[in-house]
């Protein structure tokens, strides 16, 4: 800031020597015309700093309780993505889990975002957005997003996945 001001003064001296009075006018107009750039750059810098803090300071997605439909969907999806098939199968409804013919889910990066949950007595539907991330570059990620739904059933007070979106399916065509 200090440097800036002295720089300005120097310019005033120069223009004054050359043209006299109009130098002042052009200098004030220059000062006036410079603040939008400074303001915008400051705004960009603030956003970048906030983004850095927000992304690096947070631990990960919010963990939902295991006895809620969202919690079951979250654990099931994380297990499928991590390739932990045993945990995933544990979250499937028993009749599906018993005759599950295993299939390999894709290895693309997936992001699952909660849209909403509709809960009834013994069943629930969890709507999600599943984003499949194919690649990333400095200009963002190339991804395919689709809205999908998990169907869940409640058996003995626990929620189980009854139907899952195809990206997160681990059994061949057995009710899925």
């Amino acid at each position, binding site marked *: 800031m200090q440097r800036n001001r002295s720089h300005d003064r120097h*310019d005033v001296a120069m223009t004054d020597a050359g043209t006299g009075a109009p130098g002042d006018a*052009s200098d004030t*107009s*220059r000062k006036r*015309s*410079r603040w*939008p*750039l400074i303001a*915008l750059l400051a*705004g*960009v810098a603030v*956003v*970048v700093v*906030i*983004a*850095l803090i*927000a*992304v*690096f300071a*947070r631990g*990960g*997605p*919010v963990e*939902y309780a295991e006895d809620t439909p*969202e919690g079951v*969907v*979250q654990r099931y*999806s*994380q297990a499928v*993505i991590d390739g932990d098939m045993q945990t995933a199968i544990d979250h499937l409804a028993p009749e599906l889990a018993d005759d599950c013919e295993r299939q390999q889910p894709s290895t693309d*990066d*997936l*992001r*699952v*975002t*909660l*849209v*909403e949950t509709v809960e009834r007595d013994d069943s629930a539907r969890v*709507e*999600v*957005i599943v*984003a499949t*991330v194919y690649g*990333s*570059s*400095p*200009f*963002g*990620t190339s991804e395919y*997003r689709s*809205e999908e739904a998990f169907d869940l059933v409640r058996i003995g007070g626990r929620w189980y996945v009854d139907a899952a979106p195809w990206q997160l399916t681990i059994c061949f065509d057995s009710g899925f």
Partner: protein
Amino acid sequence: MMAATSTGRAQTVVRRIIVFVLLLTLVVIAAIGLAGLIERIIGAGATLAGDDAGLARSLAFTVIGAPLAGVLWWWERRRLASDVSERASLVWTLYLTVATLTALVTSASALAITVNAALDGRWQSADAAAAIVWAGIWVWHRHMRRSPATAPTRLPLLPVQLSALYGLAVAASGAISAIAALVSEALAGVVPVLADSRTWFLPVLQALVWLAVGAVVWWWHWFREGARDERGGFATVVLVVIVGASAATALLGLGTVLFVVLRLLFDTDAPAEVLSPLGRAIGAALVGAIVWDHHLQVMSARSERARRAARLVISGVALIGAASGFGVVINALLATLGPALVDSNPRTLLLGGLSALVVGAPVWWIAWRPDRTVGETDAADPARRVYLVIVFGASAIVALVALLVIGYRVLEVLIVGGAGGLIEHVRAPFGLLCATAVVFAYHLVIWRRDRRIAPTPAAPERPTLSRVVLVTGADADALVARIRSELGVPVTVWRALDDSGALGDDAVPALLTLLRAVSTRRALVIVEAAGPRVIPLEE
């Protein structure tokens, strides 16, 4: 009379178009036929079962295409040699450009493919034959372009410029691939290769073949055929485009290298995945920078206007990078707010945006120099005005698309429900919208300041003369040159049928005085026996 002339002209143009389209078609047919025949000769040992129908087709194409092309060319050549207007026709230049480029691209790529297959231990006689035949056609058309009897007089270096551009593009992409292959081999310690059907140096050699072919094509046209020293308007546009494209390649490469480094330091993904774009990025950064630097040097000998245009293009490229990067940073910030069940790491997104911003912003600063004092001439510079208008136009389009997506999702939530997915759906367009708003706001301030500083083009006391139409029966080349040099005004000559009324040298100063006194934009000059008559024309 007028109608008869314009009908005659239209007929000539249509005749030329038909003749040259026909000639091009016949040349292509003959080339396909000849290539087929040559392939049979040089690939004879490898044929296991004869394909007689193919032989019949090749023979027919050759026997019918080649003589007809020859006859048509013999006929057209006589016209070109005898009629200057035929050689000055744009259709002739366009034919030469299309035929030369087709021949060059086909033969150069067929040659590179043949050599690459040979390196891999295969002999592809079809590509070798195509390379030979099309090289012959290229030599033939080069002769047409240079022979005094047939050389085009309008845009004569157009094919040379475009050929040099093609050579440069091929050489640059070959060099990038070679560096990419080398780097990925060098990274084998970090990214272990489990199995590979080829020896490691084969991809490098094959890329080097493309580099060599492209470099020869570029060197030949750029230095030997004089594309580098051409100063015309089109040559300048090509130069500015090359500067812009090479700057974009170099900056994208540099941004990706930075992205990879940041991901290695701060991301949690496996190194093999993170490092995969590194080779190509290093290649793009290096090759783009070399091409950029060479053309900046060529540019330094060009007019101030051309250099300013190049700087504005670089500034625009860097601005796109920086603004997109900022948009991605906002996108990443919003990704932390959504109700995610399972996350793909938003760090990757943030680091990508930061790399684009960190590379784009300084280059934009250097090229645009927002801290410099903008003088009256700068503010009134048409290139700067056009740049600002393009920035506004592009911002408006991006903002419109982003707003449509955001509006659709917001209304969907209001009408259908499902508010949880709103952030997920709108974060990318919202980031773009914010970046566009920043860009728009800054340039709006610049635009308004420029308008304030720039000397308002004071409505001239009287409009200056900007075109003279000269009606004369005699040859008027000297007079036209005189008016052009003295008044700096373009002159259109309409030849009168009767050749009375030539203007003597002693009458020219009087005519110039009369023209200087004209207070309209256009004036008609009729040279009569009694002397010149100057008629100012209404707008």
